[in-house]
């Protein structure tokens, strides 16, 4: 499978390099999860990237951007392999990578071995990537998993009156970060998280996991994505599950809400939080949705862009705008370009984004609820918009650092 795509890439880059003599090019490597559990997420990420190119164009002064795509499967080693291949074989100068949490941590560490190149995170959201020992040449224009959960815990406790919840999540860094954000806020408000179940990424048979869900809780939080989420919902329906659900940012997302079949209907009324909301009325968001819809025929896209499309759009936008500010000047180990990246304030579709001193995004978060549009399509409806969410989630940095790094058991369910 991967051989095929690599072969095609090699061929296409061969043709492209022939044409490259005429004009000076800036080579950018892009990775996306085009294989494995998160295939659908990677594909929609690439749609967001393409939408950004349609809107902004590929010209940087008299130079032109050239993009080379490599596929990964959400594992850290696949991401490092893809990035290494882009750097060593395709000689890219800038990377737009990667998509998934564990990949992000691995690529950030790899970025340190190439201080002369610049890495722009495409969509990954593990906290550790930019919070622990950040790489000076790694920039992230999307929020991390914990930031994307801001508002959900309080909403569940205050409005929905949930007091006890349990969580089920994929066993890797991004979902740890999401549960981290949820637990911190929900337990801080006075709620209890009684049970945290972790399943390996790529689990097919959830029947036993579903059977082990506790009955004595008010709601169950699902931190799953891609094929795992669809498998879970399908088997949840077969098992006749009826609990209240809460969703993580890639669970309540068009990648799942527009999947085939009727198992997704279990999600109607589910509350969630994410870096975007499908039905937000902000003109910038609506313009982006329109651009996305116009770029692809209806059967080749989702009814509305997924979080991944939005993230890839935002990171591509940062790349192009910063390059234009310095007129494509990548001399002196890309120093000017990096300075522009660090300073830039994005007017992204999902709200204003600026970077902190770790080169991590400060942005807007949305609490949402899933609604049926009456024609069988599901969308996330805005319940609450929270601007200026930073990586320490509004905590004092000293207090925040004592909580510990997101993991299967951190944070404890208490008020910090």
């Amino acid at each position, binding site marked *: *499978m991967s051989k095929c795509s690599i072969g095609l890439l090699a061929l296409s880059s061969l043709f492209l390099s022939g044409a490259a003599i005429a004009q000076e090019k800036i080579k950018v490597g892009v990775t996306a999860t085009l294989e494995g559990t998160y*295939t659908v997420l990677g594909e929609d990420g690439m749609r967001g990237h393409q939408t950004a190119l349609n809107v902004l164009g590929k010209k940087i002064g008299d130079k032109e951007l050239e993009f080379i795509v490599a596929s990964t499967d959400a594992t850290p080693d696949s991401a490092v392999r893809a990035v290494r291949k882009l750097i060593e074989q395709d000689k890219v100068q800038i990377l737009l990578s990667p998509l998934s949490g564990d990949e992000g941590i691995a690529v950030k560490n790899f970025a340190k071995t190439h201080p002369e190149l610049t890495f722009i995170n495409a969509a990954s959201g593990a906290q550790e990537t930019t919070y622990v020992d950040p790489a000076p040449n790694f920039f992230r224009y999307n929020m991390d998993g914990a930031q994307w959960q801001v508002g959900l815990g309080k909403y569940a406790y205050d409005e929905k009156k949930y007091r006890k919840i349990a969580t089920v999540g994929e066993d890797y860094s991004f979902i740890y970060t999401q549960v981290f954000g949820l637990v911190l806020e929900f337990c801080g408000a006075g709620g209890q998280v009684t049970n945290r179940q972790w399943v390996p990424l790529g689990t097919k048979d959830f029947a*036993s996991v579903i*059977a082990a869900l506790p009955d004595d809780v008010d709601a169950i939080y699902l931190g799953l994505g891609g*094929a795992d989420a669809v*498998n879970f919902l399908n*088997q949840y329906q077969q098992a*006749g599950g009826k609990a209240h659900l809460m969703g993580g940012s890639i669970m309540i997302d068009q990648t799942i809400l527009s*999947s085939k*079949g009727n198992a997704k209907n279990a999600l109607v009324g589910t509350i969630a939080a994410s870096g975007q909301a499908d039905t937000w009325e902000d003109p910038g968001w609506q313009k982006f949705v329109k651009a996305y819809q116009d770029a692809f025929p209806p059967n080749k896209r989702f009814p509305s862009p997924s979080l991944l499309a939005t993230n890839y759009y935002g990171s591509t936008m940062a790349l192009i705008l910063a390059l234009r500010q310095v007129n494509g000047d990548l001399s002196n180990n890309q120093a000017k370009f990096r300075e522009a990246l660090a300073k830039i304030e994005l007017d992204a579709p999902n709200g204003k984004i600026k970077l902190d001193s770790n080169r991590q995004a400060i942005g807007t978060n949305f609490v949402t609820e899933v609604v049926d549009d009456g024609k069988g399509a599901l969308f996330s409806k805005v319940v609450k918009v929270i601007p200026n969410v930073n990586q320490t989630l509004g905590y004092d940095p000293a207090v925040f650092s004592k909580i510990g790094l997101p993991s299967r058991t951190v944070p404890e369910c208490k008020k910090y």
Partner: protein
Amino acid sequence: MSRFIERHPAWALITIIAIAVLLWLIFSVWPPGLEEAIGRKRVFLNAVFNGITLGGLYFLVASGFTLIFGLMRNVNLAHGSLYLFGGYVGYAVSTSTGSWTLSFIVAFILTALVGVLLQVIVFRRMEGQDLRQTMVTIGLSIVFADLMLWACGGDFYQIQTPSWLIGPVDLPLITAVKSSGEPVYLRYPMVRLVIFAASVVIGVAMWLALNRTRIGMIIRAGVDDRDILAATGVRIQLVFVLVFAFGAGLAGIAGVVGGTFQSLSPGEDIRFLLASLVVVIVGGMGSIPGAALGALIIGLAEQLGSVYIPTYAIVVTFLIMVLVLAIRPQGLLARR
């Protein structure tokens, strides 16, 4: 059976005790102390049932694999591709016609046809060269995987369960007793029970066909010594083609089953090839009862493992395989 008890009294005793304990765990109401020690009975019962039904799916895939190996000594490493192909065909049929049952029939026929083509065009040319055949099947599995990726994309597909199979049923097994004294029964997904029943029916039918019919007699004779069988005037090539078609068709059916209660995507072919390899290594290459026993053991190990030792669940199946290879390398139910 009685010979086994005579020869290995200690093992027989251990087996009988294990079965008795298992039956007690399934049918009794658990005392509170036990619930505290290993969790609720509902979780345990569900894991056991899931293991058995997953074993049913593994049996469907592995029985075709082991049948083909038993007769033709051909380790068909493209068997996983046939599984995935059957699943995609089933998906296409069920979405276009809306009929779940029809998707099984079409998937069986089309995968069987692919099996016939494979046998006639490829394997007949290199008959008796086991290693060469195996290498060719590896190559074919890579080609098939790429072709299917090209045709169906990297997306995951799920075959719609018919509405009469959606939802759970109450089984007459008590999981707990409420404080009011009212028993709580086990609720279990209907579709998994139906699929398990179907795989038992297929397994029994296969056993009957192999042991009670003329064609079954020919196949068994071929497994023992195909040269002598050919010398007696049986049209051995025709038997080969039929067996290959049937084994492939079973993989196709399994694909539809897998697509219904799990999902189909690139990579599933390798997963099920690996599963059926482990199953037949544990059960014994070429033995149908061995495939059934192996599938049951692997299914149970996977599901119980995922509940009670989630971190190491993946290791358990391979541990079992290593143990079997160390103690009884020919497999649990192999004849030789």
